[in-house]
């Protein structure tokens, strides 16, 4: 019997605040006049800020909660801030997008908040059942969000595809949990690692369980060969939702992966190492090669996000505190540049997302130099150019990888990042070096969008030029995980 204590509640305060705001938005929705629906968006943003403040309170009371199923440690707090940053940027970028596409409904913001709650739980859980609950909460919210442009065929297809494949993957994960429970009699990560200490305990069954759980997560990470859904869903979903999808659930899945593979299952040794190694290599190569042929910007960014998952997996494979902190730093960099890019794409695409081909950006820089420069910064950062966050993220991951003697994987990753420059530059070429008039140049960027973009751009340069503080934080956040 677990008794409820105040400390327990404080340790999940951010999740509580987010849930309250999410439910409030949902409840208030019918009472807000259609023209005023924007207010719900601002309320959701307020919820994110309140949750961020609540997280400060949580950080004063670190420790385990609810009988050791939730951990409020540096690791989870780092991730909670990452999710809140993502959610905040996405909400800022969505308010006017929904207005323009006549889809201004309060549920959207409620779902973003509740999805974020799920992700926070995923990062904070130290129990497989809690992880599964978090996974479900975040998945169900994002399934609905993916189909939010109800009248659009592609959006519906995206939602259905995401839902079917997603459920399948969660089933794998659950199946894995069942195996683990059968083997060890516990679902607690600490208990698990205590019972699976010896390599001899890694029987075939245990390995099957490990693989099953990896498959479940791999779907969320969109690593090869579980990436098939990604381009379709990213293309079909409304662009701000894609921004959310490409960062939030992915980062949450990485949090779980780190806790599982470098925490609970740390003793699995070579099995998990080779799983990570092979999927990192395949994911990078396939993501980048497929991105080369894309003409749709959203699909291109989808493949690019697959490739980035590959780079991050290199860091996970490297392991150790260096690898973990590199992954954590990379995730923040990735969040800033990917959310920024997708928000920009969302607003350039016009009503009904018509303008999402690379040629739609032709000559954009002539008429909208600021917009083009912003987008160029996002793409150069994604390509990993020095002075941007993307470069330092990659550098940090590769440094950790070389430190763990993953020379082959590092060389492969370096080659991949050279290849990737080509497709990122294709958009830059279209914007700057081809003459032409584009409808995208007429798009208005309201101030909330500008704010979100400014935060992303400044963040990218801050992480790229003066990364002392963020690097320190990511090192700190890596501490709770066992070495």
């Amino acid at each position: 019997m677990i008794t409820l204590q105040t400390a327990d509640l404080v340790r999940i305060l951010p999740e509580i605040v987010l849930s309250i705001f999410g439910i409030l938005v949902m409840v208030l929705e019918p009472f807000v006049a259609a023209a005023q629906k924007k207010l719900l968006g601002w309320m959701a943003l307020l919820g994110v800020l309140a949750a961020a403040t609540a997280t400060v309170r949580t950080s004063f009371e670190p420790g385990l909660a609810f009988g050791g199923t939730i951990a409020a440690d540096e690791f989870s707090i780092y991730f909670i801030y990452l999710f809140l940053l993502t959610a905040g940027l996405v909400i800022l970028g969505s308010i006017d997008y929904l207005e323009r596409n006549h889809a201004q409904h309060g549920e959207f913001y409620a779902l973003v908040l509740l999805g974020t709650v799920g992700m926070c739980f995923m990062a904070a859980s130290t129990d497989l059942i809690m992880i599964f609950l978090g996974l479900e909460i975040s998945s169900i919210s994002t399934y609905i969000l993916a189909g939010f442009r109800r009248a659009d065929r592609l959006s519906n297809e995206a939602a259905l595809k995401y839902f079917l494949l997603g459920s399948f993957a969660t089933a794998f994960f659950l199946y894995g949990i069942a195996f683990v429970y059968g083997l060890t009699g516990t679902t607690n990560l600490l208990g698990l690692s205590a019972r699976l200490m010896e390599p001899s305990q890694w029987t075939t069954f245990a390995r099957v369980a490990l693989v099953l759980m990896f498959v479940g997560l791999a779907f969320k990470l969109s690593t090869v060969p579980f990436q098939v859904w990604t381009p379709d869903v990213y293309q079909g979903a409304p662009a701000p939702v894609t921004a959310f999808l490409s960062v939030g659930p992915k980062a949450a899945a990485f949090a779980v992966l780190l806790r599982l593979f470098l925490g609970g299952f740390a003793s699995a040794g070579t099995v998990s190492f080779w799983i990570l190694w092979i999927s990192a290599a395949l994911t990078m190569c396939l993501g980048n090669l497929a991105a080369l042929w894309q003409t749709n910007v959203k699909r291109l960014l989808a493949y690019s996000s697959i490739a980035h998952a590959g780079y991050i997996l290199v860091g996970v494979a490297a392991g150790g505190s260096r690898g973990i902190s590199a992954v954590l730093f990379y995730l923040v960099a990735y969040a800033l540049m990917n959310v920024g890019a997708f928000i920009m794409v969302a607003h350039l695409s016009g009503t009904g997302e018509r303008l999402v081909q690379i040629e739609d950006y032709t000559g954009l820089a002539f008429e909208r130099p600021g917009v083009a420069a912003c987008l160029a910064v996002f793409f150069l950062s994604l390509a990993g150019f020095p002075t941007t966050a993307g470069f330092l993220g990659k550098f940090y991951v590769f440094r950790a990888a070389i430190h763990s003697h993953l020379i082959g994987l590092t060389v492969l990753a370096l080659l991949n990042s050279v290849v990737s420059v080509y497709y990122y530059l294709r958009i830059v070429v279209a914007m700057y070096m081809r003459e032409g008039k584009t409808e995208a140049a007429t798009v208005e960027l309201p101030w909330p969008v500008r704010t979100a973009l400014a935060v992303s751009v400044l963040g990218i340069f801050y992480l790229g030029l003066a990364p002392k503080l963020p690097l320190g934080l990511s090192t700190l956040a890596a501490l709770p995980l066992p070495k």
Partner: protein
Amino acid sequence: MQFAHDHILSIILFIPVVGMIPLFFISGENKQATRWWGNVVMFVDFLASLPLVFWFSREAPDQQFKFIERHNWIPSIGAQYFLGIDGISFLLIMLTTVLGFLAVLSSWTSIQERVKEYYAMFLLLQAGMLGVFMSLDFFLFYVFWEVMLVPMYFIIGVWGGPRKLYAAIKFFLFTLAGSVLMLLGILTLYFRYHADTGLYTFNVLELMKHTWPLNLQYWVFWAFMVGFAIKVPMFPFHTWLPDAHVEAPTAGSVILAGVLLKMGTYGFIRFSLPLLPQASTNPRIVKVMVVLSIIAIIYGALVSLMQRDMKKLIAYSSVSHLGFCTLGIFALNPHGLQGSVIQQVNHGISTGALFLIVGLIYERRHTREIKELGGLSNVMPVYATLFMIVMLSSIGLPLLNGFIGEFTILQGAYEVSWRWAAWAVAGIVLGAAYMLWLYQRTMFGPCENPKNQVLKDLSFREIMTLVPLVIWAFWIGLYPKPFFNVLDKPVNAIVERLNPDFFKAAQSARAPAMSPPAAPASLEMPSHAAGASH
């Protein structure tokens, strides 16, 4: 004043960056104001670099690197903001500030579209190039090395000729592929240093003090070699160069040839040789590098002879001239290295001026086809005169700068092997052939084409873009002593590092006999290096 003295390098480095900020507030319509501002910033940057000339020889004479600035930047990985210069980087920095200003000055009328962005890109480019020559921290160096790629890519891709997209992407991908390999080399050294000492550092001076295992040296040497050789460009890696040059706007070509290519040769001198002395003196590696250099000299010259486009001709002549520079480097003796650096400066002056000259005619005639031109000396006497001087300096006529550089390189090459020198001389002869032939076809003869008969001679601004380079060419040609003085110390330090016994051997060889020239004494060097490496 003291502050300016202590932070002179940062000041030079950041003037262009800070100068970019007001540019954003000038209205895009106001092209004239934009031009003025861009030129003023570059000129101020040049002025800021002038004190270096007066302070350089007096500053810390016993130190190898002067004007050092050093701050922690990213302590957790050991990256520092670490600037400092020796004679080699000093000359290249002066070349950069002079050429940078002249290149911008030359764009006054030729750039009419997106003027603001153009000047912003040039300012960024200038900062990147200066940073490369100033950095003594590998991480910082890599950042500048890459940063400089972006503005150059835009300059070619936005303001370039008809095939600009192809040229820009090719330039970008070639250089990037090379620099990623170089990064791999840098990281290898970084981790090896950590494994040996427990410290993470990118400090080049610290890394130079370390003794690296031979096997690692070979790997890193080849990684660096590809990175630098693409930039130089050395023979099999040169294919991006003609495309980039032909498509780039005039000022882009001037900077590309004048400064960017020097980053490759600078990399060899600053990093490859002193960091990896055993690999660099390995006879087999030296042979490969020298053979590639000689191929570049001859092949570049032969291809130049075949060109119909003036700009392409000069682009290929760069391949040939840079071949001399790399030949000088891998002669691995003081003469070769000094000659190489002088020749790098010379090439910046002469080829920079040649590209300006081609740009001037292109702006008037909108063609660079040699057969479209002819007899221009009749209508444009000032132009023809300046072209003559610049051409002669490029050929290496005595009294002008090219002669000094080429002669010293030949001396250095001859000290190792007369065969190397013989091949290089063949390159000089061919070089004279294609340049004189070019001059003859474009300037002499009757001026028959009616379009050419109405051409205006140079304006005052246009003359002023060329005059400083001509003066510099005469200065090096007539009184090169200050340049050699500046280079003496760093070059000797590198040679000492490559072959600790070099100067002892040279002294003992000089003592017994005046008989056969210096050649036999120096010939010992490669064999000695072979001994050291096994």
